[in-house]
């Protein structure tokens, strides 16, 4: 039985309780307020609002390789009930839930869902998302994977004019009910918000080659042929020279795809780049955004020996913004194990094991809120209507705080839908 999730959530008002009761009694509703897809309550755009008892949002979408794109943002309440907002779909979609509301996007629009209603505005973009951030001064910025420049223009998917950027990502700046979009060069393996700017780590791209060479980059004989560069991608730099911050000849793009953080102007992340003179599979990376060199420390155990984990966990790793002090980085690996790494020497302590291996399951994902980590994973064997559980744990001790079980049922609705981003209601 589900306990009341989130002690700080207020009980739904009388009006909402009446509406929910009507939905339950009538099944598929004739009112304009909502309809249903099986057990989901579909929220109509004109009347949708973020109810007080919604604790988690989940984006499910077709993949970009599917012949038709569609998606839903599922709103899960504290009793496991599910409402849904239809979208046109977005592969690898991210959700941002902040004091402004719940922000999300699809190929045609951007959305902001609040307790007062759903704002949407036209915002055309490609169908694979890379990242989304909450801007400090309000609004949101998000990044999308478009593809190679020339053909993208031919298909009307890239900005006309301007220099040839080679491989393109789109940056969308959203706020005050509107969005603007521009292209940047690169295919990001890391994106991070530092202050009010967004930075990207990507393999040196065509327009940056000569600049990167002047900084010491050289082409390699095996893939990846160019090393990584750090560029500012938001706000849009006035020139390539302004955007390019540094390059690192030893960086080969193998970073934690699920989240890097920024601390004191430096990007902090976990990497599987092989390092000279060590057999450590992983390293903790500090990459300053002011042009200073990237620093990588091999990750070792308290005994000084390489941590006995394989590099394959990196791609499913997420790094927490919260840390017990400025010298440590707390992260949950793709193997589900939570670790704390001391930045200066790479000394790493295993804290606890969540049992959730994201690298093995497309139904498992993590989210952070302060010193709490949320794990969404399936209960038992797969079924189209399987139980999922959202559990919250103290990030350091692993103590279980709350468990919510829910049947998301998205593959029962449409077997082409995949679990993408999740967001948890902010505390307070």
């Amino acid at each position, binding site marked *: 039985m589900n306990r009341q999730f989130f002690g700080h959530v207020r009980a739904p008002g009388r009006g909402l309780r009446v509406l929910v009761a009507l939905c339950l009694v009538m099944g598929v509703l004739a009112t304009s307020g909502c309809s249903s897809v099986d057990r989901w309550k579909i929220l109509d755009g004109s009347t949708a609002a973020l109810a007080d008892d919604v604790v988690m949002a989940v984006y499910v979408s077709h*993949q*970009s*390789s*599917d*012949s038709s794109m569609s998606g839903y943002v599922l709103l899960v309440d504290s009793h496991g009930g599910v409402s849904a907002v239809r979208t046109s779909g977005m592969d*690898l979609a991210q959700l941002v839930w902040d004091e402004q509301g719940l922000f999300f996007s699809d190929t045609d629009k951007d959305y902001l869902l609040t307790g007062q209603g759903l704002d949407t505005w036209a915002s055309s973009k490609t*169908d*694979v998302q890379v990242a989304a951030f909450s801007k400090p001064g309000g609004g949101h910025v998000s990044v999308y*994977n*478009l*593809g*190679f*420049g*020339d*053909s*993208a223009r*031919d*298909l009307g*998917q890239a900005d006309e004019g301007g220099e040839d950027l080679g*491989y393109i990502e789109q940056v969308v700046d959203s706020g005050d009910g509107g969005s603007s979009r521009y292209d940047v060069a690169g*295919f990001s*393996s890391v994106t991070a918000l530092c202050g009010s700017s967004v930075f990207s780590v990507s393999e040196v791209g065509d327009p940056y080659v000569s600049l990167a060479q002047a900084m010491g980059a050289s082409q390699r004989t*095996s*893939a*990846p*042929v160019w090393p990584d560069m750090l560029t500012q991608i938001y706000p849009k730099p006035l020139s390539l020279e302004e955007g390019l911050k540094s390059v690192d000849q030893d960086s*080969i*793009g*193998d970073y934690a*795809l*699920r989240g890097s953080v920024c601390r004191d102007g430096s990007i902090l992340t976990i990497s599987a780049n092989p390092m000279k003179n060590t057999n450590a599979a992983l390293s903790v990376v500090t990459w300053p955004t002011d042009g200073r060199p990237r620093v990588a420390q091999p990750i070792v155990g308290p005994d000084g020996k390489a941590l006995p984990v394989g590099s*394959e966990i990196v*791609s*499913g790793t997420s790094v927490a913004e919260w840390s017990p002090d400025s010298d440590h980085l707390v992260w949950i690996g*793709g193997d589900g194990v939570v670790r704390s790494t001391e930045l200066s020497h790479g000394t790493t302590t295993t804290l606890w094991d969540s049992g959730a291996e994201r*690298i*093995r*399951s*497309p*139904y498992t994902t993590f989210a952070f809120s302060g010193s709490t980590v949320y794990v969404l994973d399936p209960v038992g064997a*797969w079924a*189209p209507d399987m139980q999922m559980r959202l559990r919250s744990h103290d990030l350091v001790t692993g103590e279980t705080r709350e468990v919510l079980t829910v049947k998301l049922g998205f*593959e029962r609705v449409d*077997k082409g839908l*995949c679990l993408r981003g999740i967001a948890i209601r902010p505390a307070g």
Partner: protein
Amino acid sequence: MKRRNKNRIVAGLIATTLAMSLGAIQSPAFAATDLLGELAALNPGVSTNELQSAVRIEAEKTGQSEMEVMAVALQEARVSAAAASGNAVRSSGGNTTVILGDGAFPGDVFISPASTLFIEHGHTGIYYTTKMIVEAPGPDKVSRSMYTATFSVGVGTVKQYVNVSYADGDKAGTHAYVNLRNKPYNNNFAMNKNITASSMNCSQLVWAAYMYTLNVDLDSNGGLGVYPYDIKNSPRTVTYQTL
């Protein structure tokens, strides 16, 4: 009899036999239309006019009749669809998607169950590094890179290495990354064996990467088109993981 004429007669007999076995009916004109229609149905997104034009070009290039070209192309398309359907995800069985994840070597390939506009042909891509693939995702989309940690594929997907050296596999993967991401999608699987085409579909991209760099032909059954399951069944590919 000149060798070329003899070959045309023999090919014509083969094509006629194929056409009869494929259920074509009496009139040659009607049979051609019938074949073209079915070929178009198995290559969604390609009009019969486009196919007719491609058939004509191929016939002129090879000296075969258009009927012969269509019959061979249709046979390949049917075989591909049958092979792919045998690997299709069954809705009554287990979970439908899994994470693709790392490959073993650059140049590895994956073949996953997938349909294009409701025709089951499978999907394939090539590893540029062990953590990044290059793929032609589908109609109206350009070929691009994707990280394998966030790439979901159908259950039953296989990862394969190609029976070449590590360095050669790396060359093929790098060629795909550097030169083959600049491509709109080619809906025509039936006649897609062009290694420098301005548009490419998924299996064409993988096949072209190996053909261009190493002259290694991953098409297991030859012919005019290369489909994802032709690559899966190639004697040059070795399955090392099934998801």
